């Protein structure tokens, strides 16, 4: 699964730490997601989308391999 959290974060001018605090996970988790090493749960994906004021589909995208 692809995501554009890093871009959204830049637009919203948030650091990894600030975003992680807003959604209640560790900074490492945000980092792992941005690197594509961790696929978040639906709840976390929805929380992240809410922070950026977007829908989940605008941030997360399925890949060929999924």
């Amino acid at each position, binding site marked *: 699964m692809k995501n554009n959290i890093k871009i959204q974060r830049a637009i919203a001018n948030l650091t*990894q730490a600030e975003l992680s605090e807003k959604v209640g996970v*560790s900074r*490492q*988790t945000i980092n*792992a997601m941005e690197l594509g090493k961790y696929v978040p749960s639906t709840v976390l994906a929805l929380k992240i989308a809410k922070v950026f004021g977007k829908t989940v589909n605008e941030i997360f995208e399925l890949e060929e391999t999924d």
Partner: protein
Amino acid sequence: MKTSYLFPYRFKKASGFLFWITLLLLCSYVMFDSYGNFEIKTKVFAVVADTGLLGGSEWFNWVENSIVDEILFILLIASGLVYAFSKEKTEDEMVSKIRLDSLVWATYFNYIIILLCYMFLYGFAFLNVMMVALFSHLLFFIIRFRWMMYKQNKLSYDEE
């Protein structure tokens, strides 16, 4: 993430310290005190105990026994369980995933090692393996989990 079966984070450091110290003590006790220089003899209640070398056993009786290894084992298992299953500073879903992965990995690894020992070790060497096998799963899990968490933390400091 609401996980009710984990211990609070504040237990982590103390239990970790106790676990490694006890492990060290137990290893040195088993390796260097084979002559029984350091013993605390006392009467203990035994469900089953040997009466002699030739296979006789008695049930539900009080027997004389050194309880040093019992004490060390209780400390090791108790502190190990708390250390292995206490929450991280920020407990989230990725930590749960890493924990689960490590648990699966440790289970496979542990049984592979035990099987290899079973096939290739005999006599007293195997008796020692049996003893280690009582806590090896916990030990492998702790090492693997801590290592993965360490790698995760390190990865994250390289970024941004």
